[in-house]
């Protein structure tokens, strides 16, 4: 299948990426080239095959539920675009 301009716009909104009208057609064509490449997977018979998520099929480890990090808030906030009183500032969302 190939994507339409509307579908590309919807995907871009989901991804929080803006595509200008000038680049829309080219973006769609490039994405369709890539989808053309991955389309051949559909023809593969994978009945009964377990999906592979980890190279050596390791599972998540459990650890003791105890604090492992020290408080480095001021170091981390020193590199933030905007902070105030220990908080990260973003544009107002609730009037």
């Amino acid at each position, binding site marked *: 299948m190939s994507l339409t301009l509307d579908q590309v716009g919807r995907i871009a909104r989901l991804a929080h*990426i803006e595509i200008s009208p000038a680049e829309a057609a080219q973006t769609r064509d490039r994405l369709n080239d890539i989808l053309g*490449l*991955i389309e051949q997977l559909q023809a593969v018979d994978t009945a009964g095959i377990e999906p592979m998520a980890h*190279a*050596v099929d390791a599972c998540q480890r459990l650890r003791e539920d105890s604090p492992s990090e020290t408080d480095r808030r001021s170091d981390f906030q020193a590199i933030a675009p905007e902070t105030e009183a220990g908080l990260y500032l973003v544009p107002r969302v609730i009037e």
Partner: protein
Amino acid sequence: MTSAYVESSLTALADALAAKAISSVELTKLFLDRIERLNPVLNAFITLDRDRTLSMALAADARRAAGENGPLLGIPLAHKDIYCTQGWLTTCGSKILSNFVSPYDAHVVEQLKQAGMVTLGKCNMDEFAMGSSNESSYYGPVKNPWDIRRIPGGSSGGSAAAVAARLAPVATGTDTGGSIRQPAAMCGLTGIKPTYGVVSRYGMIAFASSLDQGGPMAKSAQDCALLLNAMAGFDGRDSTSLDRQAEDYTRDLAQPLAGLRIGLPREFFAAGMSDDVRAAIDAALAEYRRLGATLVDISLPNSGLAVPAYYVIAPAEASSNLSRFDGVRYGYRAPDYLDLADMYCKTRSQGFGAEVKRRILIGTYVLSHGYYDAYYLQAQKVRRLIADDFREVFKQCDVIAGPTAPNVAFELGAKSEDPVQMYLSDIYTIPASLAGLPCMSLPCGFGAGNMPVGLQLIGNYFDEARMLRTAHGYQQVTDWHLHMPEGL
């Protein structure tokens, strides 16, 4: 005149430092001076900090004066800019991290600091490691030291160019679908991607978490083994790090190759490989036969599906990983916006380059409602088929050999307008990445334009030592790995 030290192996440098023939500060200055002279041409480094580097060298000399004598103490290295380095700019080749001074060190960086290595600088790379030519970097393309009109490979292209031009004795790289092996091949180096889980991903900026793996890039297999000794190790902060006993990867280097069974996947030797690459690979295989190895015909029937499976799995994981870059906690924030959603959107649209955006869009699409099973889950099942092929053939052979890339380094700009053509540069490296197997590239001759050709080796899980021995045995009877680009 070039000092012999810039061409020395890690063991030779360690010996010279131990014998006090040279100090770490003197050695480090040799490399910093070369960088100063050659980096304006090659663009291999994004960030340099001479004072910080020299203070690390000074500290290494003090540790030696206090009686320490490790194999890497005082030896300089370059880090791919994907590794977080405390106090240094860490950009990952992106505008979105163009102001990110990391507040912490990656596990690999910590380990190498502990070993006493000196950071020369941060190496250029494809943006978020997405690329095979280093042309997607926000900081401009890296030039191949063998021919500056050509690409150095990617995504660890800055690391490769730095070591090839002898701007650093060794460098760190990362490999998701070939990003250590392909640039190693393009620049005439030896580079290894270990078994997935051997090197911690903590502090290594994530691209595709089920595939990303760090590894060394060096002039020889022996240097790779030495550096891997210090890079590997369990780390509880990476949930996929494997808790295994530490290994000495140099332990089998001197073992002879007689009786070694080398598997040659039919699919890697079919149409697609250029004639010059084929000639160099064939000559290398003949050399292995002379060393007493047996060549075994094998088949990896599903390897042709590796590139399509990878271009579902890697973008899917990338779209999820890169959602953290939103202009709130660190990195670039767009200067003008209407509201919060617009701030996210403008920050990401201005901060990411074209290839990164493409992969985020593909990843978002294949994970979106109604498509997850058809794409992501199906790709993970195909991934299992590919891995099973490898399990089967390792019953017939000890190590697999073939080309690293279908061609020598191409010219800058040759494929930058055609993503699918670019993706196909990794046709031979991606299968082992999906399987999570250890794999490496080593130089085995020169092809068109007198550019280096890489031989790829793939080992069984956790069989790095034997794979490195396979490379080292070859490097004992050939000198391709000792060649250096002229005019530098």
